């Protein structure tokens, strides 16, 4: 299977997608790449109950330790970054852990423009990979 896949193309196109999305997310935001990854990891963990079919479930909090383990980033770095993100109202600290606040004023989450761009980029990536015969389904 691996012999038939054009890895340079897959690598290049998927990296281009990730970079375009990250650049757009950071354009008008004070966050850097690591902040974005931390927020992504926390939002991902928060969404689990809803995606597991528990309707109306509150987001599941995640610990700083959990974020540190997930991203392999030192705990102290996570602590420092998380404190700054809480200060910007992008994260909230709850008893069961950290929660992402999509309705923040920094444009991270609940950002219709960014969501639309993301969907557009995904469709372009999908079309480009398909056009080059990369099996995707």
């Amino acid at each position, binding site marked *: 299977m691996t012999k038939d896949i054009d890895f340079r193309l897959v690598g290049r196109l998927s990296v281009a997608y990730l970079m375009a999305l990250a650049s757009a997310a950071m354009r008008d935001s004070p966050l850097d790449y690591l902040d974005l990854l931390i927020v992504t990891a926390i939002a991902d963990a928060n969404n689990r109950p809803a995606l597991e079919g528990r309707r109306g479930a509150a987001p599941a909090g995640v610990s700083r330790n959990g974020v540190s383990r997930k991203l392999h980033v030192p705990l102290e770095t996570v602590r420092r970054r998380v404190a700054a993100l809480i200060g910007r109202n992008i994260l909230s600290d709850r008893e069961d852990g950290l929660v992402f606040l999509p309705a923040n004023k920094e444009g991270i989450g609940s950002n219709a423009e960014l969501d639309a761009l993301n*969907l557009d980029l995904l469709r372009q990536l999908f079309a480009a990979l398909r056009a080059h015969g990369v099996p995707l389904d």
Partner: protein
Amino acid sequence: MEKMKNRRRQFAAPEDVLKPVLPDPAPSPVRDHPFSRAIAHFVAEFILRSAESVSGIFEHDYEAAILFMTISNRNSEKVMADPRLREQYGSYSSTIPPEHALLISRMALARATGLPRETVRRKVQKLIDKGWVVELPGGLRARPDLNRHADYVSVLEPQAQNLRRLFAQLLSTGALNA
């Protein structure tokens, strides 16, 4: 004791987190898509899986990983944009010759990534010392024979599977229908 008490974290109440603080937004076909949360989640998982596999070979230095990917992408930009060249050099089994490899300066890297110039200078030096990037008269290039490096290839292989998983999930939500 009083000092210890003051240092305790102040927790937000779970019900407060669910209360919107911003006014109702205008309707958006993307946000109002029946699977918008699922789409965001699948993309987030894809980003985290990609970051995990890529950063592993950079000792989890995400800035170095981003810089390397930006250099590598710039190097292959011309080849990828030209169907004839892509046919010839699209695979990692071939090396892009110097006349078709676009180089990138540290200044352009700082602009492209939004990282401070001093950070770029330091991390690029780290990549050069590691032997993953070479400095040429016109700028930086990912080492051309990296395609023979087992660590590098081990990162690329899961990416195809990673993409397939993402698109299988997205297709199941109908998100890719224009």
